Every structure is written in C-alpha cells, then in structure tokens.
C-alpha cells in the first residue's frame, strides 16, 4: 500500500468514526428548562426549578442512566463587577444524578446576573452517551438598577451644588487637613461550629469563590444491601431565608457527593433526609458559615471611578452654570 492510499484509508476510517460518534450522540436528546422561565429569574430572588429531560430518538424518556451536571457562573463583565466578584467565572455546581424517568430536577438560587453555562453529560445504562452545553442569561433585578440610577443622580447633584459654591467665592485656598485612617483587618469569617449530631453529612469548610465538597453517605448497615434510598437535600441561606439549592427524593445507592459553591459569606443550613422503605427516615442537618473574602481591587476600582466621575461631572456643570449666569448678567 502506497503512502497516499494509506492516508486515504486513514481519513476514511477517521470520518467513519466521527460519523458514528455523532450519530450515537444524536440518539439522545437533552432538553433543559427552568421554572419559572429564565427571563423571569433574578439573582437572589427565588430559587428556580431546573429540569433536564433526556429522551431517546423515539422521543421517549430514557429509563435508566446518569447525568453529570456542571454549572459555571458568568464571567466578569467588561467594566463593572457584580456584587459577588469572587463568584464570577467560578464553578457553582458539579454533581452526578441518576435519571428518574429520563428526568433530573433540582432547585437552585442564582447568585449573580450574567450568562451561565450548564454542561450536561449523559450516559445511559445501555452505553449511549451524549453531551450538551446550555447557556442562558439571568438579568439583574430592576430595582437595583433604579437604586443605582438614583444614587448616580444624587452624586451629580452633590457635585453640581459644590461646583456652584466653589465658583462663587474666588478667594484663597483653604487648607484642609484630613486624617482619615482606616484599619481594615479583613472580615473573613471562620467556619462556625456545626451541629453534627449525625455524621451522615460531611461538608468541606466552604469559602466563597471555591466549590466545597458535600458528601452524604448511607449508614454502614445500609450500604451493602444495594437497595436505593431516596435522598432529599436542601441548602438554605439563613440570612435571606431562601433555598439556595434543593434536591428532592433522588434515588441513591450508597453515597452521594457533589461540589457546591456557597456564593455568599453567610450562614447556611444544609439538611439531608434519607428515606428507605421499611426504615425510619434519617435526617442530618448542619449549620455552616461560608468564609467571606474581601472583594478584589480590580472589581472595586471601576465602581469608585464611576462614582467620582459623576461628582466631577457635577462640579463642572455647577461651575459652568454659575459662570454662565454671571456672564448673562454682565
């Protein structure tokens, strides 16, 4: 076989393999939806029910399989940061769920505005695989933009008034000594005690911006039996009183692990309820405190530059208005 013949054969084989892989992936259809719809979701408003439906080529839900889910936070904006800069671009969730009637459902409270990326890898019991990435945008709460607009107007007005006052008196400079010293020694909260009365739930000490490993394990007596246990897991933001994440009665055999980012430096209650037929339910609960981090300087500079810029604008406008009036009188 000549070299060109060999190259052609290799190309044909590669093309065939690619076609087969594509056809195989196309056997499964992955659908994603949220309730309420994405356009109605707002950061830290109410948790959304996230649903994945995996269907075969015939449109019927896949009976058995697992789905690997990765949720990534929006990347940093071009100029302004969000109010949670450490969350930007980080991995919010990573978990593997068993499909139930082709579905996987969970609840999640989105922390910031922007474009999220949800990566889904599906593997059915009969070996079929498919992957898909969904992107969707969460818009900021309208009242926040209104408050920012009001604050911006107030800063311009402040500068305007100051500009007029400073223009009126062309006199000496007044020396003003300011000794403002700020001792900022950070406010990172330490992890607080957890009421680990049941060791079934283990949580890595969480820090904002880094996913923490959350591990739930069945009791030693149950692990060997192989019978599925229905696990309900919820993470509640105590200060806001909102559910940040929730899984309801997902079938688990053995242990369950997931990576979850606690996006706010606050206290959370993590509750797990394991239910198995013929046995009393096992409840585990922990109160954890996510360690907060001081915002990075690169995230603070644009906001403060914007605010100072507004005051400068007001100063200029105030001076211009005053001098214009004086010229008009002359």
């Amino acid at each position: 076989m000549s070299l060109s013949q060999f190259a052609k054969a290799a190309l044909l084989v590669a093309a065939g393999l690619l076609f087969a892989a594509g056809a195989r992936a196309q056997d499964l259809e992955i659908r994603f939806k949220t309730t309420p719809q994405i356009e109605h979701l707002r950061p830290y408003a109410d948790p959304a029910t996230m649903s994945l439906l995996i269907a075969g080529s015939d449109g019927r839900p896949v009976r058995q399989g697992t789905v690997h889910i990765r949720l990534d936070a929006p990347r940093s904006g071009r100029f302004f940061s969000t109010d949670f800069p450490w969350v930007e671009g980080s991995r919010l969730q990573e978990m593997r769920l068993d499909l139930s009637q082709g579905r996987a459902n969970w609840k999640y409270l989105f922390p910031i505005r922007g474009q999220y990326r949800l990566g889904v890898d599906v593997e059915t019991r009969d070996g079929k695989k498919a992957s898909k990435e969904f992107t969707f945008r969460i818009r900021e709460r309208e009242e926040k933009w209104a408050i920012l607009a009001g604050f911006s107007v107030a800063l311009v007005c402040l500068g305007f008034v100051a500009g007029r006052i400073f223009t009126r008196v062309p006199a000496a400079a007044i020396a003003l000594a300011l000794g403002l010293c700020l001792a900022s020694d950070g406010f990172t909260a330490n992890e607080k005690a957890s009421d680990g009365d049941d060791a079934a739930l283990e949580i890595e000490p969480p820090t904002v911006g880094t996913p923490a490993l959350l591990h739930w394990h069945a009791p030693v007596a149950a692990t060997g039996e192989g019978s599925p246990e229905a696990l309900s897991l919820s993470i509640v933001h105590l200060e806001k009183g909102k559910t940040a994440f929730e899984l309801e009665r997902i079938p688990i055999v053995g242990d369950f692990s997931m990576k979850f980012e606690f996006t706010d430096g606050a206290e959370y209650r993590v509750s797990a309820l394991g239910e198995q037929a013929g046995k009393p339910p096992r409840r585990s609960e922990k109160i954890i405190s996510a360690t907060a981090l001081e915002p990075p300087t690169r995230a603070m500079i644009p906001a403060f530059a914007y605010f100072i810029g507004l005051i400068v604008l007001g100063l200029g406008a105030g001076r211009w208005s005053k001098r214009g009036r004086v010229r008009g009188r002359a």
Partner: protein
Amino acid sequence: MEKIFAGWLGLGVSEQSSFLIKSAIFLFVCGTTLFVALGASYPAVHDTLHNARHALAVVPCH
C-alpha cells in the same frame, strides 16, 4: 475680609486655581467617604451598609 485674610497669609490664588484646589479637597473627602461606606471591610461599617452595597448592583461585596 476673606480676600484680605488670604492676601495677608500669602495664599492669594486665582479664581480658577481656587476652584481646582477646593474641588480636589472636595473630591478627596467624597472619595474617602464613598470608600469607607461602600468598600471598607471594617465589620461595623460593612455590616451596617451591607444591604446598601448589594443594592447598588455594581459595588463588589464579599
């Protein structure tokens, strides 16, 4: 009176320079106040103004 006092101290400056100096001092005071209110991590200030910081949408918090 202010002019006489300024002249006596040797601080007489043009109106434009006066405006610039006053504006610079004003901006420094405003900037410091804004930083303390919206950027300082001192717990007493942070906790009091935590909600205000988040309400402004573009001010980074923890």
